């Protein structure tokens, strides 16, 4: 089966770089499956899980807290704000993060639109983290 190069980088290191069959990305406007030969795209990501498929099996699930992805026919580069394998997520951290984000959102109600949206995005990302942690 055809493969493409998937690269997952966070600001602090290169997490993954290998040929895969398919990757499902949590794009800002809905989940997005990437197969080899995908049209060139740049997408924003929200908080969610990246699922990596090799030889018809899911081999890796990683949580990203947001970021970007650059897709070309031969390659898919994910620039994650923060990435952790789903297996090593913990509920406690996720819950703490939700509380923090909720507080930030309440504090931001009087702020301009953009700030509120950023706070909302953080809250959603934290909730996605909890979901991923529970599913693991």
């Amino acid at each position, binding site marked *: 089966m055809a493969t493409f190069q998937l*690269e997952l*980088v*966070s*600001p*602090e*290191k*290169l997490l993954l770089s290998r040929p895969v069959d398919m990757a499902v990305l949590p*794009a*800002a*406007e809905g989940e997005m499956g990437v197969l080899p030969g995908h*049209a*060139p*795209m*740049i*997408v*924003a990501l929200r908080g969610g899980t990246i699922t990596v498929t090799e030889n018809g099996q899911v081999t890796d699930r990683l949580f990203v807290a947001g970021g*970007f992805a*650059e897709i070309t026919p031969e390659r898919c*580069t994910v*620039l994650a*704000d923060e990435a952790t394998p789903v297996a090593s997520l913990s509920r406690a951290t996720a819950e703490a993060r939700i509380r923090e984000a909720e507080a930030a959102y309440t504090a931001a109600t009087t702020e301009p639109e953009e700030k509120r949206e950023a706070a909302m995005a953080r809250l959603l990302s934290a909730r996605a983290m909890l979901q991923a942690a529970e599913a693991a």
Partner: protein
Amino acid sequence: MPSLKDLRGRINSVKSTRKITQAMKMVAAAKLRRAQSQAEQARPYAERMERMLASLGASVAGSPDAPKLLVGTGQDKVHLLVVITADRGLAGPFNTNVGRFARARIRALEAEGKTVKVLSVGRKGAAYLKREFPRHIVGEISFMGKKRIGFEDAQEVADRITAMLEAGEFDACSLIYNRFQSVITQIATEQRLIPAPLPEAKSEAANGAQALYEYEPAEEQILATLLPRNLAIQVYRALLENNAGFYGSQMNAMDNATRNAGEMINKLTLNYNRTRQANITKELIEIISGAEAV
């Protein structure tokens, strides 16, 4: 002529100095390795970010409502210099180099009639510049007591810069830091942040195929999140290079200090032995001449 006791005391004190500098050299060498590998690990992200920005920036830069982070405020009056230095000293000319470079830049910009503001990152730079430009410094950030520099720290600096830009406090911004060239050479450099220099946007567009990206959501929206991120990445990179450079420089400085201490010990030991022999000879002469007189 110092007495034997004085000489012994000095030799001992230089010896303990040498022990300290030697230990500091080892510590710096170990930390340097870690700092270097951290800098290397950060590189892939920065590279890819640059590539993405090149294709995005090219398509948006021309439009009149391009984000401020990309094109600046359109004026060129107030410059913000972000000066990055280490928090600690004992690293040879490391901090002074950046300080001197920053001073020259401030003077040059002022000679052009521009207002200069300084945001200092790291304790040493602040101390250096405060003496001469107390009114230019608008903020100080220090990571004293942190074990390692994380991306959040860079984010903090970047957020500060963004907030200042939004408040209209400056028109252009550059970073001044020590670029890590090798363990023995660090070069003080200036890097432009705002307006953002577009990396090889033209050559990419000339390739044709590269420029045909689809965007989801729209370009402007992606750019609005990508640009602050890019700023943080640039700061992060500078912080890491600064960090690696600092340990390199410190290792060198401590190596020199250890060598100098060794030389000093040799000289003092020679001096000590000579004095001791002179004393013995003197005593012998006294005894002999005393015996002869009897």
